[in-house]
C-alpha cells in the first residue's frame, strides 16, 4: 500500500466536555474548529476541504447531521463529507482526512468531530437500543449495556481476570483526567469505590462506565511541504488502519477484538512498526468501559492476550509507568461525546508529542504513539499511529 504524500497534524482544539452544554452542536463544532485553526495560525481560507465525524442522528433528533453541522465545521462552500463508523468515528475522521491529503487531492484538511448527546431525553441510552438487530434481538427487550457485559464477562472468563484488575483502569483514568482542563469526570476514587458502585448488568457497574457528554474536537491536517511552512513541530500521521467484523456478533468469540488487531496491523505496517511493544511510547486506546482499555491494549498488540489486566494492576500503564495508557484521562475521565471523544485522543497524541501537555505530559522522550477507537456492534477498530 503506497501513500502519495506524508500527512501531518499541525493544529488541534477542543471544547470542554460536559453532561449538558448550552451551546448547540453547530456552536460546539465552531468553537473546536476555531481553536484548531488559531493554534496553527491558519485562516478558514487556507483550508481546502473539511471532514466531519459525528455519531447517530438519533442523539440529536436531527437528520443529515453532517449537512446540519456544515457551517459550524467551517465547510461553507468547500468539499465536505461526513463519516460515521459508530464509536470508531473519532479515530476514523482523521483517517478520512488523511485520505484526502495522502491521495494528493488536497494540501490542507480540517477534521471536526461533534457530539451532543444530552438532547435525547430522558437519557441517550434509548437512542442506542436501535443498534440491536431489529428482527431477532430487539423483541427480547435488550439494554445497551447487555452486549458490553456479555463481552466483558467472556473476556474475564477466558483469562480468569478478577474484577479489581479491571476496576484499576477506571481509577487511573479518572485520576489522569484531574490534569485535563476540559474533563467532565476528574475524580479521585479507589478500586473499592468501583467494586461497591451500583451493579447495572453484571459484571458492569456504574463506575466501570464513561459518562454521556456534549463536546467537540478538531484538528488541522497538512501535506508535508505545507506543514513545514505552518509549524516547526508537525506531528506526522505515519500509519492508519481500519477494519470491521461481522454484525452477527453472537457468532464470534468476544474475548478478543480480532478486528482491532487487523486495523493495528495495517497501521503498523504503514508506519514501519515491527514490534509495537518496543516501539510505541504511549497509547490512547478507546476506553468507554474500563475493560475496553485492556481489551484494546491486547488488540493493539501492546501486550500478550490476557496480559493487560496485570500491566494495569502493576502500574505499568500509569502516566509515569513504562507504557503510559490514556494519559489524557480517556473517556472514563475526560468524557465520552462519542465522535469527539475519539478525536480528543488524537489531540492528546498531538499535544503529548509536541511536549505541550503540561501536567499531563508523559515523562521521557515520547516519539511514537498510537490512538484507537471502537464501536458499532463491537465490530469496528480504527487505528492511527503518530510520530513527533
Amino acid at each position, binding site marked *: 500500500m503506497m501513500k502519495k504524500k506524508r500527512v501531518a497534524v499541525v493544529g*488541534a*482544539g*477542543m*471544547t*470542554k*466536555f*460536559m453532561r*449538558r*452544554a*448550552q*451551546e448547540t452542536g453547530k456552536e*460546539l463544532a465552531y*468553537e*473546536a474548529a476555531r*481553536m484548531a485553526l488559531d*493554534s496553527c495560525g491558519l485562516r478558514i481560507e487556507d483550508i481546502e476541504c473539511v471532514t466531519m465525524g459525528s455519531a447517530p442522528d438519533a442523539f440529536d*433528533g436531527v437528520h443529515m447531521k453532517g449537512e446540519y453541522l456544515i457551517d459550524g465545521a467551517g465547510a461553507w462552500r468547500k468539499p465536505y463529507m461526513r463519516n460515521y463508523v459508530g464509536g470508531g468515528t473519532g479515530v476514523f475522521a482523521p483517517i478520512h482526512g488523511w485520505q484526502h491529503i495522502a491521495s494528493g487531492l488536497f494540501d490542507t484538511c480540517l477534521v471536526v468531530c461533534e457530539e451532543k448527546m*444530552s438532547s435525547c*431525553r430522558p*437519557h441517550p*441510552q434509548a437512542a442506542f*437500543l436501535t443498534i*440491536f*438487530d*431489529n*428482527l*431477532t434481538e430487539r*423483541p*427480547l*427487550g*435488550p*439494554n445497551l449495556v*447487555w452486549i458490553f*457485559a*456479555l*463481552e466483558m*464477562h*467472556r473476556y474475564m*472468563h477466558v483469562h480468569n481476570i478478577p474484577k479489581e484488575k479491571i476496576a484499576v483502569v477506571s481509577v487511573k483514568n479518572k485520576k489522569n483526567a484531574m490534569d485535563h*482542563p*476540559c474533563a467532565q469526570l476528574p475524580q479521585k476514587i479507589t478500586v473499592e469505590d468501583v467494586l461497591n458502585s451500583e*451493579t*447495572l*448488568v*453484571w*459484571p*458492569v457497574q456504574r463506575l466501570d462506565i464513561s459518562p454521556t457528554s*456534549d*463536546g467537540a474536537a478538531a484538528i488541522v491536517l497538512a501535506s508535508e511541504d505545507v506543514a513545514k511552512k505552518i509549524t516547526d513541530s508537525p506531528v506526522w500521521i505515519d500509519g492508519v488502519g481500519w477494519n470491521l467484523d*461481522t454484525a*452477527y456478533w*453472537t*457468532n464470534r*468469540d*468476544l474475548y478478543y477484538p480480532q478486528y482491532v488487531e487487523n486495523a493495528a496491523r495495517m497501521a503498523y505496517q504503514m508506519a514501519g512498526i515491527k514490534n509495537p511493544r518496543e516501539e510505541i511510547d504511549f497509547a490512547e486506546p478507546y476506553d468507554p468501559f474500563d475493560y475496553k482499555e485492556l481489551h484494546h491494549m491486547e488488540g493493539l498488540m501492546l501486550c500478550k492476550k490476557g496480559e493487560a489486566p496485570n500491566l494495569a494492576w502493576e502500574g505499568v500503564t500509569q502516566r509515569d509507568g513504562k507504557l503510559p495508557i490514556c494519559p489524557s484521562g480517556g473517556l472514563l475521565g475526560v468524557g465520552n461525546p462519542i465522535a469527539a471523544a475519539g478525536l480528543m485522543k488524537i489531540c492528546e497524541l498531538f*499535544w503529548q508529542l*509536541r511536549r*505541550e*501537555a*503540561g501536567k499531563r505530559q508523559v515523562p521521557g522522550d515520547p516519539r511514537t504513539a498510537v490512538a484507537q477507537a471502537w464501536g458499532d456492534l463491537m465490530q469496528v477498530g480504527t487505528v492511527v499511529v503518530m510520530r513527533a
Partner: protein
Amino acid sequence: MSVRVKGYAGTPLREEDLEQRRVLLVSYWPKAKYIWSAGIAIGRYLAELKNGRIVGRQCNKCGRIVVPPRMFCEWCFRPNDSWVILKDSGVVNTFSISRITADATRIKEPLIPAVIQIDGTTNAGILHLVGETDPEDVRFGMKVQALWKPPEERTGSVTDIKYFRPIEGEQ
C-alpha cells in the same frame, strides 16, 4: 488541552436549568413507526420458531452451519446451500446479570441475557435469556434447552422461546 491554550469553550447546564426553563428550549417528540419484512432467511427462521424448532443455514464451501440464518455466506460471499434443522439446545458461551430493563428502569428479579451456542452449529450463538435458575448458578459452558411457549401462543418471533433453562443434572 495544550499548555499554549488558556481558555476553552463550553457552558454547562444542569438538569434544573432545563426543568425551570432558565434557558430557552424547544422540544420535539418523534412519532416514527416502522414495519419490517422479516426477509427470506429470517422469515423462515421465525416461521420455524412458530413450529417449535430452530433452523440454520449451511455453506458447503466453508462447511459452516450458522444461526441466525442468512441466504448467503459472508465468508465465502456466495449463496449458501441448505437449511439445517437444529436441536433446541446449546451451551452458554457468555452471560450477564441485568438489573435494568431496556429503558434503564431498575428491576428486582434480574434477567440473565446470554449468548447460547446452538448445538449442531459451527460455534454460532444467538442472544437470548436464561431462566429457571439462580443467577449465581449459571456457568460458562452450561448446557441449556429452550422452553417454548405453548403452540397457540406463538407468533413467529424469537420470544416464542420464553428462555433457555439448564438441562437436568446441570446444577
